[in-house]
């Protein structure tokens, strides 16, 4: 109940914001009869109606995970975000080993197996991508490559 109501509220607010955004779109004197504003406005109105429907008739509450699992998922998001930033400056091998091990540990907390998974995936996928598929991956940080 509550989850659907909250989600419905988020949808309503987003739809209103989207509608407001649609009014801000610049139009050009060259525009066609419909112009660039109408279709986004239609989407916003339909979304708004759906959000209100969810507020009015919410579904049964889904089963949310307990707090420790939320923490794990939050850590995973941080790890993945860090990976996105590391991939360009640090090359493929090191970040991939770390992140693969991290994700593995988050799914099943076994440090040794996770570390092994990380290293094996990093090297294995590098060989696969670089030599079998011919993608232009950089192995190591630029500084170390000379």
């Amino acid at each position, binding site marked *: 109940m509550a*989850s*659907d109501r909250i*989600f419905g509220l988020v*949808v309503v607010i987003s739809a209103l914001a*989207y509608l407001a*955004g649609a009014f801000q*779109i*610049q*139009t*050009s004197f*060259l*525009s*066609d*009869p*419909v*112009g*660039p504003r109408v*279709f*986004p406005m239609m*989407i*916003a109105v*339909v*979304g708004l109606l*759906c*959000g209100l429907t*969810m507020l009015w008739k919410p*579904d049964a509450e*889904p089963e*949310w*995970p307990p707090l420790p*699992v939320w923490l*794990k*998922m939050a850590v*995973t*998001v941080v790890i*993945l*975000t860090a*990976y*996105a930033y590391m*991939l360009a400056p640090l090359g*493929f091998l090191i970040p991939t080993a770390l*992140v*693969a*091990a991290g*994700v*593995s540990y*988050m*799914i*099943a907390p076994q440090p040794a*197996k*996770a570390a092994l*998974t*990380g290293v094996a*995936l*990093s090297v294995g*996928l590098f060989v696969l991508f670089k030599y079998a*598929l*011919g*993608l232009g*991956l950089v192995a190591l940080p630029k500084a170390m490559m000379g």
Partner: protein
Amino acid sequence: MDTISNLVMGFGVALTPFTLLLAVVGCFLGTIFGALPGLGPANGVAILIPVAFTMGLDATQALVLLTSVYYGTMYGGRISSILLNIPGDEPAMMTTLDGFPMARQGRAGDALVISGVASFVGSFLSTVGLVVMAPLLASIAYLFGPAEYFALYLLAFCTLGGVASKNQAKAAVAACLGLGIAMIGLDNSTGLPRFTGGNMHLMDGIDFLVAIVGLFAISEIFIFIESHGRDSAIGVTLGKLTIPWKDLKASTGTMLRGTGIGFVSGVLPGAGASLGSFMAYMAEKSILGSRGRFGQGDPRGVAAPEAGNNAAAGGAMVPMLTLGVPGSGTTAVMLALLLTLNITPGPLLFKERPEVVWGLIASLFIANVVLLIMNVPLVKLFVRVLMIPAWVLLPMVTMISFVGIYSLSGSTFDLLLMVVFGVLGYFLRKLDVPTVPVILGILLGSNMEDSLRRAMVISDGDWTFLFSSPIAIGLWIAAIAGFVAPLFLRGVLKKPPVPVMDVNED
């Protein structure tokens, strides 16, 4: 016979050693994706699109690889349904009902062979159906103007939301979310930015591949963390494989009926393979009535849904190729592939790029034969793969997703956006909001808006033009019926005996 000569030309394109190799690799990977619980056809194809693209494959080769993966997942899903009682992907859900009881009675091998043959019958005949129907539909599609296309897009969203989801409001929200995202970027006709917030990265819009991989693959990590990465332990033993001729003969009619039902539900926009296997199973159950032992390990209970879901996979290609409107989640992902390759599906595709269409169709036939060989005599190989634990599998999927997206654009921003879509996908799935309409919205959004605007240019702003032709009116009626009818039917039809249908994976 135009069709025959086209088909011969298609085989000429598809039967080069390299494309054959791609078909074999694709079938192999596809069967694995299908068999592994948690990875379905949509994720499997989504992860491989960026990889195929950066490998520098040409259009035909990329299509051969990806359709082989698609057909392969349809075959593979049954393996874990039968051996683990966990559907390897959504469409294989119905196969667990009789497959697992058969396995527990020591007939796992028989169940795998029967379902493998049923898969072959279903997808082979539906590919024949595709050959017959696609050119016909393509010739009708010439009659479609912008007003008709607008109604057709609407129909796809409505049936997808109405038939495949439990809550119409949530399906419509998903569609709006996708359409809303599609609006981000430069407006096609005025060239002015919309919803970019001044962010340079958003000027080109959001790449649908980023959204697809995020929603389908990255969100899977969170689902697995939540489920504590249950390892799949195979509870039944697989003995020597023999071919149960008697059961195969007994289920011939079942396979053919399942194929017919599956093909029709595949062609209908939005319905897809999950519905195909569900309808095929339910129809067979009611036809055979008390003569069958459905639910207790009846071989026909394995044959019907497998023929149905594989036939739906072929059927779903018909509207995707001829009209550019996908019939299921995975064909939506395939549409993304075509658009990435700069191929616009539709009636013109058959005239302008016949080698692509017929090469694709020929490769579907080839993939089917390869898959029959892989999935009947060599099925034990895939049973081994099922032993890969989640804590190896999921990191691997993550890394392939990141590398795939990164190699497309080399942009950190896209990777971050993918993670955001992953988190979004997790919440949507928990809240029972289908993710396929989101993808469909992102893919079709600009086309839908363009057809509306072009229709209004033609009619000089007269909105009644949208309802001015019989085809358009028919599509509008079908769209409204598709969206509203399930509201009333839901009370009449009994709930299926399985967890509720979900189109996320089909």
